[in-house]
């Protein structure tokens, strides 16, 4: 790590390493107190006994994980079977988040490419424009989307007046609306890292490829994509992970008809269920899934660097 700062070997690196400890201390404290400790509490709570109407009893219990994986029927005394309810809810979140990532990539990549290939003087303006909508709170943006797409909202009114449709497209309270909300919420997280990668790309490489009679498709897949891949992967993670735990879009645009992971966890703490250990367990399972994705990414990255 220190080698990245000091260019010379030996002494200078060590000199800088000495500076590093006090400098990094605030960050470690923040991460320790506001990340590791709360996650530790959640982990412990997920193994405790549920107290009726919220709270925990300090007795070890696997009931929360049992509830997640085993179905014992409405009255809780049927022989245990595999519980599909939560798998279904997780799967819904995963494919919605995955689709949002894919859509963001399809729209974000050309956008990032467009911005990166503008003259340096206008790039800042384009980037600025990308960030403008995100000065507004996520809640406000999600509600605005609801206003836009409702049956008698502006979108349907315009399409009807333009004669493109004969009756309103019913979007509100469907999974399509949830998807629109997710995709729109996190799109800039795709654009910005890809932009950063494309901006560093040396366009002489494309020229060289063209000189060597590579088709445009081959140039894209063989030259450009490998170079900007880290940006794409970073963008995908930045869109996928928050989409996975999102609960504003499903609640406001999807009509809260179907739980996603985020709203399921929310219900355990704030709803009538008051099942804190189960909420904690669901959060830990979500966290583990995200960790797995990130570890997978980190390993593929380090393997790439070795080769």
């Amino acid at each position, binding site marked *: 790590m220190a080698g990245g700062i000091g260019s010379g070997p030996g002494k200078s690196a060590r000199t800088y390493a000495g500076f590093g400890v006090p400098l990094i201390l605030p960050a470690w404290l923040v991460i320790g107190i506001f990340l590791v400790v709360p996650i530790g509490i959640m982990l412990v709570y997920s193994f405790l006994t549920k107290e009726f109407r*919220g709270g925990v009893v300090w007795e070890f219990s696997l009931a929360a994980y049992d509830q997640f994986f085993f179905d014992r029927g409405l009255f809780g005394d049927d022989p245990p079977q595999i519980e599909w309810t939560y798998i279904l809810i997780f799967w819904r979140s995963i494919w919605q988040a995955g689709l949002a990532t894919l859509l963001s990539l399809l729209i974000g990549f050309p956008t990032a490419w467009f911005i990166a290939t503008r003259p340096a003087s206008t790039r800042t303006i384009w980037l600025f424009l990308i960030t403008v909508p995100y000065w507004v709170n996520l809640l406000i943006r999600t509600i605005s989307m609801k206003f836009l797409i409702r049956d008698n909202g502006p979108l349907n009114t315009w399409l009807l007046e333009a004669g493109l449709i004969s009756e309103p497209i019913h979007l509100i*309270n469907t999974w399509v609306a949830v998807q629109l909300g997710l995709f729109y919420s996190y799109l800039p997280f795709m654009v910005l890292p890809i932009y950063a990668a494309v901006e560093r790309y040396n366009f002489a490489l494309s020229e060289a490829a063209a000189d060597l009679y590579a088709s445009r498709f081959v140039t894209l897949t063989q030259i450009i994509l490998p170079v900007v891949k880290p940006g794409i992967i970073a963008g995908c993670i930045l869109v996928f992970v928050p989409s996975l735990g999102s609960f504003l879009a499903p609640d406001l645009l999807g009509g809260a008809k179907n739980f996603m992971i985020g709203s399921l966890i929310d219900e355990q703490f704030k*709803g009538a269920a008051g099942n804190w250990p189960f909420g904690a367990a669901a959060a830990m399972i979500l966290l583990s899934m995200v960790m797995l994705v990130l570890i997978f990414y980190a390993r593929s990255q380090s393997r790439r660097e070795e080769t």
Partner: protein
Amino acid sequence: MKPLLRTGASALALTLSATLAQAEGELSIYHWFEYIPQEILDKFAEEYDVEVTMDTYDSNEALLASLKAGRLGDYDVAVPGDYMVEIMANDGMLDTFTRDEMPNFDNILPEWVDVSFDPGRQSSIPYQWGSTSFSVNRDVYSGDIDTTDIIFDPPEELRGKINVLDTAGETLTLASLHLGIPQCSTDREELEALNDLVQGAKQHWASFGSDVAKDVLVSGDAAAGMIWNGFGMKAREEGANIEYAYPEQGYIVWMDNVVLLKDAPNRENAIKFMNFLLEPENAAAVTNYARYTAGVDGVEPFLDAEVKSAPELNPPEGGNPVFVQPCSEEVQKIYDTMWTNLKK
């Protein structure tokens, strides 16, 4: 100009008292969102020279969760609904007061003194009461609406255009009324029937939402929706052509109550505030703002004309109002499973 000056002066006084950080002279309220007019808070602050702060929550369960998570001792008063008063009292979260401490206690309407959730009013006073049923858009459906069929077995015109409250308690209670089974029933056949009912009815529901219950009716996203009466009245006043129903199978009534919290940091001011809210003029100001009904005698002269005549606030004689009951842990667990299965 004069009132402006006075407000300015009181604001200055508030700032000063805040700057001097006097321990006495503070009041910390934990309240529902959009449920008390700012003028009333200002009036209390001015009359008693108290610095008032308020946090808000959006459901009885959220209030309980927050207090359980360690906020007890931060607040002086909160405003739980009827069944939640009982739950909080049983959990030892409430302090008690005596009638001598509260000169206006006798302003409470007699029927609201000896209530089941706080017999004799040891820890709570009435805030506002109202009902929960549903409103129907009369442009869309003109038939009879005084039946829970509207929600659970809707006519053709309303199918797919219904919003239900996103709280298991109220929605499952209305469903129990529809079936004519007792609340918190432990009978397996009745519980299975309840489960089948909501599972079957969901296909007709467009959305689940509580804080959006008014908005969906005003915007037309929903043509019928479960709603609290005052919220329904506000929706009507905002231009929706809707009518509030009093279903023959029964409807839910509730009362929100100001409770004295245990370990209140400013107990004395909390009592003063509760006493202040029992003044008819102040209780009426809350009613005029929230569009519900006060449990205090003598509010009539101070009420807005629209409030007095609103159909939402004047249930017909001979209806069947019921309070939501807190169910046992065993039944609540089944309700939770039912609710999760409904929304999976």
